[in-house]
């Protein structure tokens, strides 16, 4: 059967499954729409949160970024898992005890101020919308490939699917659908990785294969990889090349951003008890770790496979792959298929009938290139976001595995986009409209405004996704920086310090969000519009600190401003101090209360 038909079958079958579940568990009341009636078991909740959390960035983009950079991009691995420690220890149990539906409700009540609630809603919308842009980038890549159309067409089709899908149900529909999505995405990620690990190292567990021996040469896999990439003038895979300060700040931004993202935090409102909120964070990380322990193996093994494919006869001496081979050898079919999406390109610059892939920016390679008559790197474009989706084709795996990966990538992007749209829509309808503009709004109109908000959010994200500020995972990293600088500090201070009052919290959030947004816009363009930036991440404004790493500094600014302003203004009233103290002990946590 044709690969295109197999992809369609897998994607179609998985979609039918999700939509079936969404209809079966459709949300009836507002409380079900937002929090699934709090009847969700910690393991189920953990699995759904993992699906919600692991987006196009984790599934489609991350391994590609690790593959082409190596150790320096370990930040993604540590950052996106380490945040769960903060979430489990510093936020989840207390927010569950507080017992409301949304993050901004907590901030509004704890800081006894409708202004604080509205500022929190704005922070949340800014971070979530940026996040959706990253998802749309991934959706575009996935749809572009499996429908065999250009990236842009793929993105537009994807946007329609995401919207139709997110409008279907609320949290409850989404919770059970997301359990199904988790199963699809984890199988789609690990099965090809197991095949590839067996091929390269003989070990069925990719995480162990990464540190095992390369079967063909008998050398350790990573040593072999280091040797073949350095021969071509690329950085040694396992070595540390990037700036240490930037790496630390980037990792920290991703960690605190994780603990500040509303769609993840919202999940911990849906477990029955405070004790379950603690377990639930652990289960979530178990399900996430299954992918995150595999990802570095996928990256390293794919890099090895790709490099060996471009130099099929044992390194430079054996000669590069010929154009004829790429066009005719079925092993290289993936290159022609991906060329159609516009995300992969090659060009025989020196006209020798072969494609030389090497690092032409490395001065040491100039002599090698001259001696061999090379005219620059001829694998001119290799978009990092295609690596995971192309990986099974590169490794020549059976066509059903390729179909499964297409379904998995879409599951990852859809589940997260749906969760984020839900967070955005609840922020607008529940916090903004019902909470401040029109408290008398009927339940029906509240749901309607929630859906309109979803539509607007996806339209903006699609428009900006056509010219994304970076690869999927990089755009998502910006969203984390924004969440880190705005939401996390307010939540943490709200629980751990009774001294922070309404003015302190509001000033902190505004300062953290605006300085981080400013830094990002200066480097990525105003409102992410291309060519309006004044600096680039290669040569950033402040020393070596890239815009993706600025969230940690924004968070520090938020904390500092909040403490200084709170110190100069009136103390927190007694009843709020009592509220904070009651949040700190699990006793008496009932079901959530609506306003």
């Amino acid at each position, binding site marked *: 059967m044709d690969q295109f038909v197999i992809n369609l079958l897998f994607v179609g079958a998985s979609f039918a499954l999700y939509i079936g579940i969404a209809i079966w568990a459709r949300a009836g009341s507002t409380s079900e729409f937002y929090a699934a009636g709090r009847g969700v078991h910690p393991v189920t909740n953990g699995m759904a949160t993992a699906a919600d959390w692991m987006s196009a960035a984790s599934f489609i983009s991350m391994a590609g970024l690790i593959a082409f950079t190596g150790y320096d991009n370990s930040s993604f*691995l*540590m950052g996106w898992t380490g945040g769960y420690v903060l979430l489990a220890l510093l936020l989840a149990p207390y927010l569950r005890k507080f017992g409301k539906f949304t993050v901004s409700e907590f901030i509004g009540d704890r800081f006894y101020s409708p202004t604080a609630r509205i500022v929190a809603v704005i922070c949340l919308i800014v971070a979530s919308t940026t996040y959706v842009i990253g998802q749309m980038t991934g959706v575009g890549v996935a749809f572009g490939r499996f429908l065999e159309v250009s990236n842009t067409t793929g993105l537009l089709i994807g946007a329609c699917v995401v919207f139709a899908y997110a409008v279907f149900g609320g949290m409850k529909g989404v919770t059970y659908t997301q359990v199904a999505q988790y199963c699809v995405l984890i199988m789609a990620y690990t099965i090809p990785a197991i095949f590839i690990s067996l091929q390269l190292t003989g070990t069925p567990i990719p995480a162990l294969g990464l540190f095992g021996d390369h079967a063909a040469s008998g050398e350790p896999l*990573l040593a072999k990889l280091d040797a073949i990439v350095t021969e071509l003038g690329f950085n040694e895979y396992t070595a540390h090349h990037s700036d240490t300060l930037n790496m630390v700040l980037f990792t920290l931004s991703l*960690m605190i951003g994780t603990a500040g993202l509303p769609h993840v935090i919202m999940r911990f409102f849906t477990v029955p008890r*405070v004790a379950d909120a603690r377990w639930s964070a652990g289960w979530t990380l178990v399900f996430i770790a299954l992918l995150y322990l595999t990802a570095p193996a996928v990256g390293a093994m794919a890099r090895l496979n790709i490099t060996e494919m471009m130099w099929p006869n044992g390194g430079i001496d054996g000669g590069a792959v010929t154009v004829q081979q790429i066009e005719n050898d079925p092993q290289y079919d993936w290159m022609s298929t991906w060329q159609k999406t516009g995300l992969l390109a090659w060009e025989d610059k020196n006209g020798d009938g072969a494609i030389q892939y090497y690092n032409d920016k490395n001065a040491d390679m100039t002599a090698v290139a001259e001696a061999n008559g090379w005219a620059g790197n001829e694998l001119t474009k290799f978009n990092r976001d295609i690596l995971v989706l192309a990986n099974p084709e590169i490794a020549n795996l059976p066509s059903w595995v390729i179909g499964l990966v297409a379904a998995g990538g879409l599951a990852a992007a859809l589940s997260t986009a749906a969760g984020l749209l839900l967070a955005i829509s609840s922020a607008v309808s529940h916090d903004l409209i019902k909470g401040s503009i029109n408290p008398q709004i009927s339940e029906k109109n509240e749901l309607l405004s929630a859906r309109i908000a979803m539509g607007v959010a996806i339209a903006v994200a699609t428009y900006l996704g056509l010219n994304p500020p970076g690869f999927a995972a990089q755009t998502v990293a910006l969203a984390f920086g924004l969440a880190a600088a705005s939401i996390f500090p307010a939540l943490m201070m709200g629980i751990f*310090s009774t*001294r922070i009052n309404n003015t302190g919290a509001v000033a902190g959030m505004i300062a953290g969000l605006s300085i981080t947004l400013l830094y990002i816009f200066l480097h990525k363009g105003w409102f992410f519009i291309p060519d309006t930036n004044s600096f680039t991440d290669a040569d950033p404004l402040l020393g070596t600190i890239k815009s993706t790493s600025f969230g940690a500094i924004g968070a520090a600014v938020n904390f500092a401003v909040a403490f200084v302003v709170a110190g100069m203004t009136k103390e927190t009233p*007694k009843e709020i101090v009592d509220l904070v103290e009651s949040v*700190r002990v699990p006793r008496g946590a009932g079901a959530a209360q609506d306003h």
Partner: protein
Amino acid sequence: MTDQSTHATGASESDKTYWQANLRIIYVSLVIWALVSFGFGILLRPLLAGISVGGTDLGFWFAQQGSILVFLGLIFFYAWRMNSLDREHGVEEE
């Protein structure tokens, strides 16, 4: 993390001891959290360069896998420890 609440009024003595015990567990856990990721994974990696693991060094392993395993251990330890602390202090949910 600062905390002035223990000087405030309203909470019972036993709730305050409970909160102090909770804070101690959080401090220790966060020190370990930072040590394995920012420490072993990044800043202290040169110190671990001598310990080789599958073609590279221990720091690389911590950065790509080890820290994730430790994070998992920390969260489950915290959940288990706090759920028993709740009972010791009689503050668990009914």
